[in-house]
C-alpha cells in the first residue's frame, strides 16, 4: 500500500477547512472503495485523505417534507438498496443500486462516493438523472446545489471544485402516477460492469397517453445522459409497440458509444435500440400493474 495520512474530521466545516488547507494534496474519502483501487494500482498517490466517516449528519437516508428523499454522503449503496424511504419514494433507485458491484462493495461504498468518482458505468447515475436529483456541494467558501443534469463533466470528472465536497443528494417529490424502471445489460457475466443501463420514468394519463417522459442512458457515453429528443417524441402519444420501437431506433442514432471490451460502437448502438424499447415496455408493464388502464 502507498503511504498517506488519514484524518477524521467530526464536522463538515472541519472537513472543508482541511480540504482548503491541503489544496491538491488532500482528498475526501467516504467509503473509499474506488479510491483504494486507484491507490493500489498506483493511478493515484494521495498525500492526505480526509474521511467523512465520523461526521454526524452525513449518514443515512431520510424523507424530506413533501415526500422527497435526502441521501447523506455516508449512506452506503446497500442502505439505499434496503431503505424503506427509497422503496416508497424512489424505488427505481433501489432497483439500480442493487446492481452495483457486489454486496460487499455495496456495504462499503457510498452512493455519493460513486457519483463523485464519476465512472460512466455507474448504475445509479442515470436513475438520478431521471429522478431530477440534485447534489449539495460544500466548501469553506460556502454551499451550492447542483442538478445532476449538470454534475458530470466527463468520465471521472465532475463540476466539483478542488475544495468542494458533496454532502448530500436530494431527490424531489415524485408527481403522482409516475412509473419507472432501470434495465441493465451486461453482455459478459452478469457480475460484470454494465454494457448499458437505461433508466425510464413515465407519467401516463387516464387515457394512457404519455404526460411526461424521462429517459437516461448510462455506460454507453462518456457521462450518463438524458435523452430529451426521445422524451419529447413520447409526450402526448399513446405507448404503442411501434412507438416504443421507434423510440429505441432514434435513441440509437443519438448516441455514439466508444468501442471497448464490452462491445463495438455498432453493437452498443444496437443495444441502445433494444434496451430503450425494453425499458419503455417494462415501465408500461409496471404502470399497468399499478392500475393504469391501457385501452
Amino acid at each position, binding site marked *: *500500500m*502507498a*503511504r498517506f495520512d488519514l484524518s477524521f474530521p467530526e464536522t463538515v466545516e472541519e472537513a472543508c477547512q482541511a480540504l482548503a488547507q491541503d489544496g491538491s494534496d488532500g482528498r475526501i474519502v467516504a467509503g473509499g472503495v474506488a479510491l483504494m*483501487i486507484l491507490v493500489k*494500482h498506483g493511478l493515484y498517490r494521495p498525500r492526505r485523505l480526509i474521511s467523512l466517516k465520523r461526521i454526524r449528519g452525513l449518514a443515512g437516508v431520510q424523507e424530506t417534507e413533501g415526500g422527497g428523499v435526502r441521501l447523506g454522503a455516508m449512506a452506503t449503496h446497500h442502505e439505499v438498496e434496503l431503505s424503506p424511504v427509497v422503496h416508497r419514494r424512489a424505488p427505481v433507485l433501489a432497483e439500480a443500486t442493487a446492481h452495483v458491484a457486489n454486496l460487499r462493495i455495496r456495504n462499503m461504498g457510498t452512493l455519493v462516493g460513486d457519483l463523485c468518482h464519476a465512472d460512466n458505468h455507474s448504475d445509479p447515475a442515470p436513475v438520478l438523472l431521471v429522478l431530477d436529483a440534485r447534489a449539495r456541494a460544500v466548501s469553506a467558501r460556502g454551499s451550492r446545489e447542483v442538478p445532476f443534469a449538470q454534475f458530470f463533466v466527463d468520465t471521472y470528472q465532475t463540476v466539483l471544485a478542488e475544495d468542494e465536497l458533496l454532502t448530500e443528494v436530494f431527490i424531489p417529490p415524485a408527481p403522482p402516477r409516475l412509473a419507472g424502471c432501470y434495465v441493465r*445489460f451486461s*453482455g*459478459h*457475466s*452478469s*457480475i*460484470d460492469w454494465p*454494457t448499458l443501463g437505461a433508466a425510464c420514468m413515465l407519467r401516463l394519463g387516464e387515457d394512457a397517453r404519455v404526460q411526461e417522459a424521462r429517459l437516461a442512458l448510462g455506460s454507453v457515453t462518456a457521462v450518463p445522459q438524458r435523452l430529451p429528443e426521445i422524451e419529447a417524441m413520447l409526450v402526448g402519444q399513446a405507448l404503442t*409497440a411501434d412507438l416504443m420501437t421507434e423510440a429505441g431506433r432514434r435513441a440509437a442514432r443519438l448516441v455514439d458509444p466508444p468501442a471497448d*471490451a464490452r*462491445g*463495438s460502437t455498432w*453493437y452498443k448502438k*444496437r*443495444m441502445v435500440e*433494444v434496451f430503450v424499447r425494453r425499458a419503455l415496455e417494462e415501465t408500461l408493464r409496471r404502470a399497468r400493474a399499478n392500475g393504469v388502464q391501457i385501452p
Partner: protein
Amino acid sequence: MTLRTVGQPVGRIDGEEKVRGEARYAIDLKVPGMLHGRILRSPYPHARLLHVDAAKAAQLPGVRAVLTRDDILRGDRVERRYGRVYKDQSVVALDRVRYVGDPVAAVAAVDRETAEEALQLVEVEYEELPGVFDPVAAMAPDAPLLHEALGKQRNVCSLSTTVRGDVEQGWRESDLIVEETYTSATTQHCHLEPHGCIVAFDPSGRVTVWSGTQTPYGVKMNLAELFRLEPERVRVIVPYVGGGYGAKSHLKIEPIAAFLAWKSGAPVRIVLKRQEVFFTITKHGAVTRMKTGVKRDGTLVARQVEILYDTGAYAEGGPLVAKKAATLAAGPYKLAHVKTESYCIYTNKPSAGAFRGYGVPQVALAYESQMDRIAEVLGMDPLELRLKNVVEEGSRFATGEALHSVGFKPLLVQVAQAIGWGKAEGGTAGEKKAERGGAGDPKAGGTRRRGKGLAIMIKSSNMESTSRCGLQVNDDGTVTVLTSTVEMGQGPRTMLAQIVAEELALPLQAVRVHQPDTDVTPFDTMTTASRSTFFMGNAMVRAAAEARRQLVALASQLLEVRPDDLVVEGGRVSVRGSPDKGFGFGDLARRAREQGSPLQAEGVFEAKEPHGEEPVSIPSFYLVGAGAAEVEVDTETGQVRLLRYVAGADAGKALNPLLAGGQLRGDATIGIGQTFFEEMVFEGGQPVNATFLQYVLPSFKDIPELFDTVIVETPHRNGPYGAKGIAESTIACVAPAVGNAIRRAVGVRLRDLPFTTERVLRALAGLQDGGR
C-alpha cells in the same frame, strides 16, 4: 474383491483445516527476518534496454538488495538464460524486453511499501521496437523477430507434426471435404491464490524454497541448474496450493526471489499482485485450420489440421503443449489419414504454457464444431455421426497405437440421454415446432430460441514419468504417507489416503499425508496432466502392499503362525478366526523399530514399464470426456443463456465419486467462462483487462441451473482399481457443445472464442466478424 473405502464419496481429509481457515498457503507463510521482494516490469511490449540503473533504489533506507541485468551479466551466480524447453529467458531482462510485464529489475526491502517505493527509483531507458501481437502476423516474412539470436525464423518457436496414412489419398477417397478456421482467445488461469514463494539461503549455501508450485522436484532441479548448485543443495517445500490449473508448474517467480535472497543474505518473499499473475503465464490463443474428408455414409476418411499456438514472448512449456496437441488434434475418431502440424509462435505478449486441457480445447473446438457441420451437410444426426466414427477399445489412434479404456460410446449415449437428446430437438418436425413455440415463436413477438449440442474430446496424460512414495507405520497405529504430489484442490491427499486405508483395512482418519518436501518426500515427476491418480495412486498401492507384507511378516514371526493364516483388519494383524490373538499396527511398529527395521515401505510406478505388446513410449492413459449443452439465444442481444449442461467422463474407476463429480463440473465451469467471455485483451501489446475488475470470471449466476455429471467406468488395465485421471475431461467440450447448440437454436455457426454476445448478434445479422 469388495472395496470399502475406495469408490466411496467421502469428504476431503483436508476439509476441516480448510473450513477452519487453518490450511496454510504460500502467501500465509512467514520466516523470521523475511524481506519483501517486488519486481519492476516493462511498460513496453518490445524494446531494447539502453540503460538500467538501480543505484538510487539501493540507497533507499530499508532496501536490502536490488537485482538488475548487471548482476547476471557481470557475476557468475546464475546462468544467463534458462528455460524448460529452450533457454530463451533470463531472470531479469538482459538486452531486450519482449512483453508488457517482462521483469527488468527487482528489489528486496524490509516492507512492501519500501520495496514499492524503491521500484520507482530504478532508472530505465528503453528504445521501443516494433512488436507483433498475433501468430499469423508473426509468421509473415517481414515481421519483427523476437529471438533471432536463437535462430528462430519467422518467430516459429517450435513445430510438431503427426502423420498417419496419406491425406492426399484421403481427399481422393472422400465424397465431401469440409475446411474451416477456428480461433481461440488468450486466457488466464486465474487461480485465486497468486503465485507466492519464500526463498532462503542458509550460511552453508543450501537453499530452502517454500513455494505454491505444482512441481516441487521441477523447481528443485531447475533452480539448481540455474544457480549452478548440486540439486541436493535445494530443498522445496510446498504448502497447500490455492489453485494451479497448470499455471504453477516449473520456475515462475522463484528465480527472482532466490537471487534477491542470495544477494541480501535474508529470506525473501515474493507474492504477486493479481495483474502480475496475468503477466506470468497464460493459456495459448490459437488459430486452428481444419480440413476433413468424409464419405457420403458419414465415414470419416481424412483430416488435416494446422494449429498456430500464440505462445507469447518466451517458450516456457509452450512447445510441449503444441507437441502433445499434434498427436490429439484430429480428435477421438477412426481416421485412416491424418496430418497435423502444430506450431508455437512467438509474439510480444506474456508467455503461454500449460493450462488445464493442454492445447486440446483449441483443437476440440474445431473438430467438434466440424462434426456437426458434416452431420448437417449429410443430413445425419450429430450423435449418430459421432457414434459411427468414434474410437473404441483397440481402435488405432492417429499415433498408430491401439487405444484402451476409451468408453466414448457409452459415455456419448448417456450424456445425450441426460440432456434429452432427440426430445424436442433433432427429433420430428412436430417436436421441433413444439420446442420453438411459446416464447420462441416469432409471431408471438418472442426473441428467444433454444437448441442442444454435443461434444467429446480426448487427451493423453504423461508419456514417461515416475512416481515414488513412502509409507510408514507409526507407534500409535496410524500411517504416514510421504508423497510429493501437490494438493491444489484436485484431491490427491484424500484419494491417496483412501487407497492406503483400503489396502491396510484402516479407517481413513488413521492415514496422514505429509506435505511435499523434497528433503523428506520421494521423487515425483510433477503434479500435472491429471496424472496423480494413475501414477501416484499405483505407487501408493504398491507401497501399501509392501507395508502390509511387512506387518504380516512380523506378526507371523511373533505369533508363530503362517502369514496365510493372518488377517489384517481394523488396524490389527490377527489370526484368522481368533481376533484376540494378534497385534495392533502400533505394537508391530514399536517392535519393528526395536528390532532395527522400522515399518517403512516404498512404492514406485514408472510409465516406461511395458504395456502389453505396445511400444514403451505411449501415453499412460487417455482422458475421455463429453459434454452436452442446452442454450437459449436472445436474438435481439445475442445473449446466450446456458440452461442446462451435462459434463461426462470415463473415469476408468471413480475412486471418490464426490470428488470426481466436483472435478467434472469444475473443469466444465472454467470452460463456461472461456466459452462466453474470458479473453485477455491487448491493444498494441498493452494488456487492457489484466485485473479481476475487467477480466470477468464465471460466477454463481453464470452456471446453468441444471448442471449434471455422467461418469462411466471402463477399467484401465494398468490403473489402480482400474482408475485414470479425469480432471481435464470436460473443459474442452463446453465451447463446441455450446456452439453446436447455438447453431441448432438460431442457425449460425460461431468459430471464434469467446462466443461474446456481440459475435452472436453479428453472426445473426449476417455481418462479417474480423474480416472472415
